[in-house]
Every structure is written in C-alpha cells, then in structure tokens.
C-alpha cells in the first residue's frame, strides 16, 4: 500500500481525482454499451439519449482538468504524484474522445434505424465488447497499479484491429454485389472504425499507466 503524504489534504485531492476518473470511466463504458444496443436493437430513442449523455462526460472532463491544474499549482507534485497528475490529464482526454466516438456511433445508428436492416450485427457487438473491456481493464490497471493488466490491454488492441478489417472486407463484398447497399454499408464501416478508435484510446491509457507504474515510456514500441 502506498504511504500517505504528510499533508492529508494532498492525499484527499489525489483521491478525488482518482474517483472522478473512475466515475468517468464507468459512464463511458455504459455509453459504449448503449450505443451498441441502440444499433443492434434499432432503438433510436436510446441513441438520442446516449448522444445527450455525452454532455456529462464533457462536464467531467472539465472538472478533472480543473482539479489537476489546481494540484499542479498548489502542490508542485514530484515523481509518482507528478506522473499521476500528468497521466490523469491525458486519460481524461482519451475518455472524452471515447464519449465522442459513442455519440458518433449513435448518430449512425439513428440513420441506419430508418432503413431496412442490411445484415444481422454479429461482429460489431463482439468488437464493442472487446473495446469496452479494454477501457475497463485500462482503468482497473490504473487504479490498482497493475502493469501486467495494462500490458494485456495493449496486446488486445490487435484483436479489435483484426475484427475491424474483417468487417470492412465483408461489407466491401456487399457493396460490390449491390450498389444500393453502399450508403448503409458505409455507415456500418464508420461504426466499426469508431469502435477501433475506442480501442486505440484504451491502448493509449494502458501505455500511460505502464509509464506511471514503471516510469518507463513504452509508447510507439509495442506493435
């Protein structure tokens, strides 16, 4: 267990940031699940609600940024604390982008739900589950200081990338077979791309967690 600061207030401030980040992570995970549900179950009303929900993510981003800046200004953190704060500042950006990607998925869902179904969604929910798990695990790794889990997240990204490529190939055959499917297929490809980006953001977080724990920058080194 980590030792406490001489200043209890400093510990409290760091804990608040940690908790807010987890809260934000939980909300982002539910957004991914709802975005997928709105698409698979053709629930346009849920899509609208999820788009509106993005506002809460944006608010949390601002709150966390402000708290981090305050700690930097007042405490001049060093070493582990400095790495934690700079990491928190970067994690919120990634989480906020994930929220944006979920909103994008919902917008495509809203459009796709107006048209006849092109094909049953099978790989997309799998991909969404994988990406969502990565986000969850990256944040768990962050909270628990678990670098092994963070490394796993980086490796899992490969699997999401492969699913994305597979989905694109499959939809390409639809489009070549019947040009009337192009509009819908393009939208589904966009959804797939959004999920792939979400997994990338989770990977970014995991890489930064490894830096926080080990003090070693592994970005742009794991294939």
């Amino acid at each position, binding site marked *: 267990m980590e030792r406490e600061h001489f200043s209890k207030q*400093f510990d409290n401030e760091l804990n608040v940031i940690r908790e807010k980040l987890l809260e934000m992570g939980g909300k982002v995970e539910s957004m991914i699940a709802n975005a997928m549900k709105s698409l698979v179950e053709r629930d346009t009303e849920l899509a609208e609600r999820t788009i509106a929900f993005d506002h809460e993510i944006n608010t949390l981003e601002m709150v966390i940024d402000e708290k981090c800046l305050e700690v930097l200004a007042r405490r001049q953190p060093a070493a582990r604390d400095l*790495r934690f704060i700079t990491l928190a500042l970067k994690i919120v950006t990634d989480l906020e982008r994930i929220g944006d990607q979920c909103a994008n998925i919902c917008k495509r869902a809203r459009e796709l739900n107006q048209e006849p179904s092109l094909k049953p969604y099978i790989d997309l929910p799998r991909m969404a589950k994988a990406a969502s798990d990565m986000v969850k695990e990256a944040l768990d790794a962050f909270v628990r200081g678990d670098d092994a889990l963070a490394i796993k997240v980086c490796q899992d990204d490969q699997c999401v990338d492969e699913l994305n490529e597979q989905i694109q190939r499959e939809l390409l055959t639809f489009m070549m077979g019947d040009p009337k499917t192009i509009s819908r297929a393009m939208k589904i490809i966009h959804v797939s791309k959004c999920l792939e980006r979400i997994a990338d953001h989770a990977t970014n977080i995991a890489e930064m967690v490894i830096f926080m724990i080990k003090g070693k920058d592994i970005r742009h080194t794991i294939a």
Partner: protein
Amino acid sequence: MNNKVKLEQVNIHFGRTHAVRDISMTFPENSVTAIIGPSGCGKSTLLRSMNRMHDLVASARVTGKILVDDGDIYEKGVDPVAIRRRVGMVFQKPNPFPAMSIYDNVIAGYKLNGRLPREEADELVESCLKRVALWDEVKDRLKSNAMMLSGGQQQRLCIARTIAVKPEVILMDEPASALDPISTLKIEELIEELKERYTIIIVTHNMQQAARVSDYTAFLYMGDLVECGETKKIFTTPEEKRTEDYITGRFG
C-alpha cells in the same frame, strides 16, 4: 563531461557521531549539483568537507578522498587556505563584512592574497558586481557600507566576493533560504549564469529550488547517499523508494 570534484568513500565523524557514511560520488564541471535531504542528513557536513571547513572543529574527523581535479585536498602538506581560494563558499545568511564598504567587500578576499593596484581593483569590482547583476543597483554608492543593502543584494555581494578570488568550485549552503521570493529567483538566475564558469554544488532544503536550478541531484538520508543522478530523472522517475517518498512528501 569532466568530473571536477570526486568523493571516494568519504566518512565524517564528530566525536562518536557518524555524520556522513561512506559516500562516493562525482560533481561534473560547469554544472550545478544539488544535495537534498531532511534536516540532519549530513548534507551541510558533506558540503563543508569540500573546502576543509571542518579543520577548525577539534572533534571532526574526515576520512576517504576528496579530489579536486584529481588532487586530494586532504593530503598532507596541502594548504587549506589555498584550497579555499579554489573552492569558494556562500552561506545561508548573507555575511558581508559589516565595517566595510561595498567596494571593499568585493576585494576583501583578494586583498588577503596580496596587494592589488587601484586600477585593477576597480576593474575587478566592476566585473564581479556585473556578473552577479548588482552593478547597476550599487555603482553610484560603492563606498557606502555594505550593510545598507537589502538581504538579497547582500547575498549577491557575498557571491561577488566569492568569485573575486577566481575560484573553480563554488559551494552554496542554502544560499536563498533567508531571502524573499524575488531575491531567491535572482539568486537562482545567477546560479544558472555562474555555472558557465564554475562548478557549483548547492545544499538546499527547498526541493523545488533543487528541481529548478540543478543539473544533478543527490539525495542524502541519515548520512547515506541514497540516490544521485540527473535532476530530471530524480524528480520524475527516481529509482529508490526512499527518494520517491522524500520528494513527494510522504512519511519516511
């Protein structure tokens, strides 16, 4: 980079107290090395050993080697006064000579070493005061008593006095801890400029100051050297848990 000062297994005792334990480290030339650590960790004691200040303390015993340019300053036959000319010292509290003018303070050290023609003295005073960024503030009152200056100005005057004898190494023991924040920043700025000509070793309680001014940082704890390395590394990713706990302000 050339190592100007080298410590080899330095131990310092005061009577039965073992204040500095077996420290070996190097101080690169033309750089600033900060020594940090909690009160009583031995950092000032270590600093003072580097220009033989403990010679005056009967109970003090220094063993091991302290090399300046590969010459051991504790070797038999070495004149401590000659060492102190090469290794200058700036103290926590500004200590200009109270009965002397600003002008005489600057050349006080130099005069001890011999006569100085008027013209050369004028030049020396001007160049030293310029180098510590005090010239513009005092050039019209060089003959006034040094005690008329503010604390920050007095400290810069003391640094001018130190560099007047053309030392190679400057030791600074908490040089800014008695000063206000602006004077502190001026001293820090000065340290940055002085390192181009001198090797600077500074003891400080203020960790942010060490982070700001130094190229290398050594962390001492209870007489031991715990960790020494690039300041950038010590303050972002130290190797040792004890260093981490100290600089982040955790219970030790």
